[in-house]
């Protein structure tokens, strides 16, 4: 409201004094003698960075190196930044460091700790970082002497689904016995139902769940021809159930024709047909576990890079489904790992992944709480972390993150606002300092970020420069990708034709000839209507 005569007079009376007082307060903040104590956080971090095995992350603004002790750098963290702000390069530098150190080579001027070993996995639902890592690894590979090239290639495992090659994936293989068969089946079906665009009724879902249990018990892959024969040919089904250790699974399928309507079975088969219609997925999950072990023998890979971007081969839902299955597998196996070496799980575009695959939110939040005991750090990179996810989830993930790196970002800048008063770089009143810090983070230049390690004040730094891979070795990007696909990808993937052959061999061995070619099959097929029934009587009457 506009002031009245009396108020204006009163403010006018105090105007000169107010102005002088405001100026005096600002000058006091500028005055080095009265300024707050200098920020010791940077000095503390520099001192911590001197510890052996400290991971290089960047440089402070005055050029001093920023290194975090491995015990902090390998813990759960959140990295937020707008597109192009530098968070992908930040993680590329980290991956380059880990790769070089695992090879016993120095990275960014820091020698590898003796006997260093770490495991790192990148899940990328947008393909961009995956491709950058491929180029980076290819550039490293080209620059290595021939003896080391094989070592580097042996460190990598690639999870990818292309028109030529796929990473095999045993969806219902519980040979390691990490969980119960029912739990594995429950998780697989949950992911499939959540990411599918088709509707699953309770009865179809129950049928899928029990079929999943059956596949797990038999170590069978999902296969449409097998499923059709299994559900439509009672005699075949009973033969397959012979020796199944679970009595309730055997009982469910023995009485299937009486307890499950035909429409439910057909609906399930239609959904399975849709799921396996994509050749990349059919070849990936359709291979029997024995064939996978033969074609891609297990090996000691330390860097796993997963491409879960839809590209132009898979719909988004199917790509996210791949990512969800992989993440669930990791969360199942990580609590059994040897905690003497660190494991770093990097989730690129975590906000997109978690907002679209909601079923992952709870296990991941739990993992960020519990996996620390197994030396596992879950590092989430995202653009719009604060808005894309539910507030409760953001809060849980933030609480469990050991450190946060904020590149140029909008709402997330407020996370550091409470520290503005403690930071000497900004002047003025408390509100002015908060506003200045938030605005600074919202306008950070590329590669500049604030690092907040819990327990200390945030510090601004510049991430490590990661030169373009192509420029580094003087090759075109397409050439580097070709080198990677030729030298490294085949070690962890299977050619589509080989996968098709393995599936065909399995079908021939397990399913056998079509039901129409055997004499006993007609009695096993249930008539669907009066015409089928009459036709079967006519066939029986025929000589």
């Amino acid at each position, binding site marked *: *409201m*506009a*002031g009245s005569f*009396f*108020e*204006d007079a*009163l*403010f006018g*009376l*105090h*105007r000169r*004094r*107010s*102005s002088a*007082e*405001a*100026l005096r*307060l*600002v000058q006091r903040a500028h005055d080095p003698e009265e300024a707050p104590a200098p920020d010791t956080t940077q000095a503390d971090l520099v001192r911590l960075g001197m510890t052996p095995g400290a991971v290089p992350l960047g440089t402070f603004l005055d050029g001093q190196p920023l290194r975090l002790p491995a015990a902090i750098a390998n813990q759960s963290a959140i990295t937020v930044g707008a597109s192009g702000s530098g968070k992908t390069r930040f993680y590329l530098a980290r991956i380059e460091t880990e790769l070089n150190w695992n090879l016993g080579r120095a990275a960014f001027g820091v020698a590898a700790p003796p006997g260093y070993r770490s495991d790192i996995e990148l899940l990328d639902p947008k393909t961009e970082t995956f491709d950058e890592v491929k180029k980076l690894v290819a550039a490293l590979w080209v620059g290595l002497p021939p003896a080391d090239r094989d070592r580097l290639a042996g460190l990598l495992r690639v999870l990818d689904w292309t028109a030529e090659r796929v990473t095999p994936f045993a969806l219902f293989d519980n040979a390691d016995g990490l969980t119960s068969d029912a739990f594995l089946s429950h998780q697989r079906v949950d992911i499939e139902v959540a990411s599918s665009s088709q509707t699953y009724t309770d009865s179809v879902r129950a049928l899928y769940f029990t079929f999943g249990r059956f596949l797990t018990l038999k170590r069978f892959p999902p296969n449409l021809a097998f499923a059709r024969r299994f559900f439509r040919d009672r005699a075949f089904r009973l033969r397959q159930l012979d020796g199944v250790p679970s009595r309730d699974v055997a009982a469910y399928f023995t009485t299937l024709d009486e307890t499950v309507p035909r429409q439910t079975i057909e609906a399930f088969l239609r959904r399975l047909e849709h799921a396996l219609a994509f050749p990349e997925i059919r070849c990936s999950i359709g291979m029997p576990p024995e064939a996978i072990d033969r074609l891609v023998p297990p090996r000691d890979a330390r860097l796993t890079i997963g491409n879960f971007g839809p590209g132009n081969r898979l719909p988004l839902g199917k790509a996210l489904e791949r990512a969800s299955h992989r993440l669930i597998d990791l969360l199942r196996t990580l609590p059994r790992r040897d905690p003497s070496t660190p494991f770093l799980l990097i989730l690129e575009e975590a906000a997109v992944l978690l907002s679209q695959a909601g079923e992952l939110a709870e296990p991941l939040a739990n993992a960020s709480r519990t996996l620390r005991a197994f030396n596992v750090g879950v590092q989430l990179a995202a653009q719009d972390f604060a808005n894309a996810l539910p507030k409760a989830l953001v809060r849980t993930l933030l609480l469990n993150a050991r450190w946060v790196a904020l590149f140029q970002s909008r709402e997330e800048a407020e996370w550091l606002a409470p520290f503005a008063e403690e930071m000497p770089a900004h002047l*003025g*009143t*408390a*509100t*002015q300092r908060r506003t200045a810090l938030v605005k600074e983070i919202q306008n950070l230049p590329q590669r500049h970020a604030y690092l907040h390690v819990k327990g200390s004040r945030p510090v601004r730094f510049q991430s490590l420069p990661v030169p373009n891979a192509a420029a580094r070795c003087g090759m075109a990007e397409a050439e580097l990708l070709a080198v990677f696909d030729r030298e490294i990808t085949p070690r962890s993937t299977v050619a589509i034709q080989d996968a098709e052959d393995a599936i065909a061999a399995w079908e021939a061995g397990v399913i056998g000839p079509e039901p129409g070619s055997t004499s006993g099959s007609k009695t096993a097929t249930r008539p669907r209507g009066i015409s089928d029934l009459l036709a079967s009587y006519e066939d029986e009457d025929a000589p």
Partner: protein
Amino acid sequence: MTRAWFRQLGVAILYALASPVFAVLAWKRARNLTRLHAALRAGWVDCPTCHHRNSLNVLARCRRCGFSEYGSRLWCSACHQTTQTFDCARCRASIRVW
């Protein structure tokens, strides 16, 4: 008695009846101005919630006309906009000054 006389009498009665209301309003206004004067003389206000001492004299920006100046955060010398409340710098609770 004329019609005009009745009108004047009515107005007088109306004023007489309204005078207590005006008196209360004037008293409230005077009290507010006294509070404002005291706050402006002190140059700061304690937050009633967290007891943080907030300065009234800052580099203030008028929320109506956008004019920025070193002076009181409660008054804009350009458009004469006044503000009765502001947020505590520590706990963000609003503080009513006058």
